[in-house]
């Protein structure tokens, strides 16, 4: 394929003759800028994480996951994700269904509210839950009376994580479901399918890759959230530290290698997410065309 050849997004080939995509020089220049920009801002930091993580060798790297605190942080993060991800998946799908398949007044407001967790500072997110459930918060005294602990315990961590990951699944699905329209569902109904049959047999299969990606993103975010969790965690060693908090503690304890090792775990998770996404997208394209 010559320099001028490109494939447009739908995969078909086209040749542009000094078209808007520019000549070879512009093309190379822009690709160069992209590599440089992404290298400086994304590739180098990731390399750095791994360099430090393995600075004491592979054995030390692996050992850093075996300490009691590391195991407990891992456990808490997994516990949180195990709750957060399924809840997000279910509610995300339900919200996407309501928003993408129906017209109703106030939809823009609901959409905006759905986006709030994207935009709210994690610190404020944590603070909101403190103001609500802290012992001096609105519900705090009452909860204390009832012996229910929310902040500085697992429920608080789960709650803030639910908050910060709320939009991921729905946001991923809404545009997808929007473009798919409702005709397939209506066809299913005319063929005698019940609402649930329609959902599980028609809607779900056609959104499954988008759903998977939304789940993976919210999973990555659930493992990675730092600011908000930090506010409500209490930092109790071996109890309420998640992986990112443990990363910070190790970092402060001068255990840099171990700290970056934990961080590299999250990078792996991110990379895994991205690979899965790649697969999901190629499956999606395969179906479309």
């Amino acid at each position, binding site marked *: 394929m010559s320099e001028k050849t490109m494939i447009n997004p739908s995969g078909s080939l086209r040749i542009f003759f000094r078209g808007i995509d520019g000549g070879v020089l512009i093309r190379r220049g822009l*690709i160069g800028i992209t590599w440089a920009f992404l290298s400086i801002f*994304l590739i180098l930091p990731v390399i750095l994480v791994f360099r430090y993580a393995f600075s004491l060798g592979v054995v030390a790297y692996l050992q850093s996951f075996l300490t009691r605190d590391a195991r407990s942080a891992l456990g808490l993060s997994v516990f949180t994700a195990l709750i957060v991800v399924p809840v997000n998946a279910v509610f995300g799908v339900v919200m996407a269904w309501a928003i993408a398949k129906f017209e109703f007044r106030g939809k823009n407001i609901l959409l905006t509210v759905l986006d709030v967790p994207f935009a709210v500072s994690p610190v404020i*997110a944590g603070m909101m839950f403190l103001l609500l459930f802290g012992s001096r918060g609105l519900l705090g005294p009452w909860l204390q009376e009832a012996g229910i602990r929310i902040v500085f315990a697992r429920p608080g961590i789960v709650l803030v994580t639910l908050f910060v990951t709320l939009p991921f699944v729905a946001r991923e699905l809404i545009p997808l479901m929007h473009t798919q329209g409702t005709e397939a569902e209506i066809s299913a109904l005319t063929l005698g399918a019940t609402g649930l049959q329609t959902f599980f047999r028609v809607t779900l299969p056609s959104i499954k890759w988008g759903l998977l990606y939304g789940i993976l993103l919210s999973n990555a975010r659930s493992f990675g959230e730092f600011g908000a969790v930090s506010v409500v965690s209490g930092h109790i060693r071996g109890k309420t530290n998640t992986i990112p908090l443990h990363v910070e503690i190790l970092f402060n304890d001068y255990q840099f290698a171990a700290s970056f090792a934990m961080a590299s775990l999250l990078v792996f998770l991110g990379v895994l997410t991205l690979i899965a996404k790649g697969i999901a997208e190629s499956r999606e394209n395969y179906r479309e065309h």
Partner: protein
Amino acid sequence: MSRKNSSSPLPGFGLSLGISLSYVGLIVMIPLGGLVISAFRMSFGDFLAAAVRDPRVLASYRVSFGSALAAAVINAFFGFIVAWVLVRYRFPGRRFLDALVDIPFALPTAVSGIALTTLYASTGWIGRFLAPAGIQVAYARPGIVLALIVVGLPFTVRTLQPALQELDREVEEAAMSLGASSPKTFLRVTLPTLMPAVLTGFSLALARGIGEFGSVYFIAGNLPMRTEIAPLLIVMKLEQYDYQGATAIGVVMLLVSFLLLLAVNILQWLSRRSTL
């Protein structure tokens, strides 16, 4: 919120909307409400004093909003190039770069903060080349902007990509067949058509940048009046048992983010309507 299209034959509208509203209410609206109620507990004068009169708070807004604005502008610009390159060109490593864009979504902000600080401190891999030139990145405003570029990048690229993909190539060809040169075609046809997406990505990156804490905290240096961001002030106020002060700043920031988001959604809605 009432139902306009009462006759959609699809089942589950009431149920799904009900569940959605309850869930969003529980996870988002109640905590948000808690914050607002706490803000209402203080007098208006106190609120103003805490949220907008304190010069240090004002300075932190300037840092937060200013850096977020700078980062969002840079992201809009480079994000456009990145999205353009990823959508329009085929070259080795494209899929890799495409996947990379999501890294900041997946990486804990603290980790990216620590990593960036290590890179850009005057002893870091990059910082050591900048320091002799007198460029200080870590522990200065450029560092904040840097961290915000990283966390905001996926927002601009990911909103632009689909828009670029959808952009009808024929429109550009039409412009060129009418005698427009490539730059003119780009400036007069391509760019205006993509403007809603650019603005959306820009606002999302901006909103995210204003609120970002984890990564900035490590790289900022946190000097009052100079490199102290508003979320840090909230943390500080909390630690000084000044809940009202923290709430007041939180409410101001929330308001700004909310307005930004609303603007984005309305923008999208308008552009969708105008391109039917």
